[in-house]
């Protein structure tokens, strides 16, 4: 059953809203969404669960690409999207409750965008 952790499907940006709508219509729950900054690109993950089953959709986009919010389809997405926006600087458009960079009270702007020195 733990193979759900590898069930990661890459989708193009234009399919994000369609996929989110389909998952919502099936009664699946948005369990998490997050961003990563790998090889100068953003990787966005959206995980939907149905009981113990889970599918994660992955978007790989350039840093200047605008991403539509899915918070009008799945309301809980607004917290994850505010987080992606503030920590990574992902350009997300149309968040239902947009905190305008005040969700996290942090001093550094988009602190997760810059790679740390190893």
């Amino acid at each position, binding site marked *: *059953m*733990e193979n*759900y*952790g*590898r069930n*990661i499907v890459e989708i193009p940006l234009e399919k994000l809203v369609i996929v989110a709508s389909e998952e*919502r219509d099936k*009664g699946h*729950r*948005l*369990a*998490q969404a*997050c961003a*990563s*900054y*790998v090889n100068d690109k953003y*990787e966005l*993950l959206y*995980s939907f669960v149905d*009981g*113990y089953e*889970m599918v*994660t959709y992955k978007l790989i986009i350039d840093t200047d690409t605008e991403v539509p919010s899915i918070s009008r389809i*799945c*309301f*809980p997405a*607004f*917290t994850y999207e505010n987080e992606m926006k503030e*920590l990574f600087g992902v350009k997300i458009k149309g968040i239902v*409750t947009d*905190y305008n960079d*005040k*969700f*996290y*009270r*942090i001093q550094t702007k988009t*602190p*997760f965008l810059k*790679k*740390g*020195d*190893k």
Partner: protein
Amino acid sequence: MSEIIKPKRTIIPFGPQHPVLPEPIHIDLVMEDETVVDAIPSVGFIHRGLEKLVEKKDYNEMVYVAERICGICSFMHGMGYCEAVEHIMDVEIPDRAKYLRTIWCEFSRLHSHLLWLGLLADGFGFEALFNECWRIREKVLDMVELTTGGRLISSVNKVGGLIKDVTPEMLKAMKETVIQVEKELKPVANTFLNDYSVKSRLCGSGILTKEEAIALGACGPMMRASGIEVDLRKTGYAAYDNIDFDIITSNDCDGYARCAVRIGELFQSVEIVRQAIDKIPDSEEVSVKLKGNPKGEFLMRLEQPRGEAFYYVEANGTKFIDRFRVRTPTFANLAPLIHTLKGAPFADVPLLVLTIDPCISCTER
């Protein structure tokens, strides 16, 4: 013709410092008279950016950062990270380590739920009940200290298993402790579930229906108290696939149901620890040697005391991991909390905030 007078709206700030909040979270409560009509939460007062440290710590050292995300959920944060990396590296840890992880997970659940019950009792002014919950919790913490060396930050997990084993005497002491805890819990549970003053504060407050719980992404006891039968321990991580237990749910969907589910889970944890101690195999090894560095990605899900937690690890084949992401249960339960606050009387706000069992340290990892 009489003029319709719209009630005035007032915004009342709740937190970040409030008697029911041990940690800082701020909620702007939009009020019409005594009724909450909207709630806007904001977090970030103690955001530490621990996930970012994964770029500077090698993947073995990162275990100690992961378990410092939060004191209460410490053991399982370390374990969640280790299990994710172990999946990427295709590492099968020894059975004895799996059972010990299961036992310590349930000890974590016991002390977390007892902490919450105490805070809830304190929230509605039942100080004797608060004292009793925390007194019992001390026994659990003493046993965690005896077996791991730390009361909250145990530092026994490592990628590939555990750092230390326990002696047969320790296992015996653990079993005796849970039996004693179960005995002392019964009158406490009876008070929580049957006392008039407790029922009058919790019954019918903060309703979250099954459909709303799914739509709003609720998790853990918050979700199970809305009649959804999902408990990630049933996915069989650690040694849970060899443990016989039922998922505790309630269809009442209110604050009382959330309390009842957590109380049921306390007794369930006692039973799981007993079963695990009876079934733990004798072996000399509690870890395996690792070869190479992790490469790949994995999303691990665990049932933390507060609910479903996610651990995403993306590794590139070096000793440094590209991304470590933790989605904590409190973060997921923020949207359901906003929903339950809408329409609630102002006096119920502190208790409703408590019924999600907020852990801000986890949320602000």
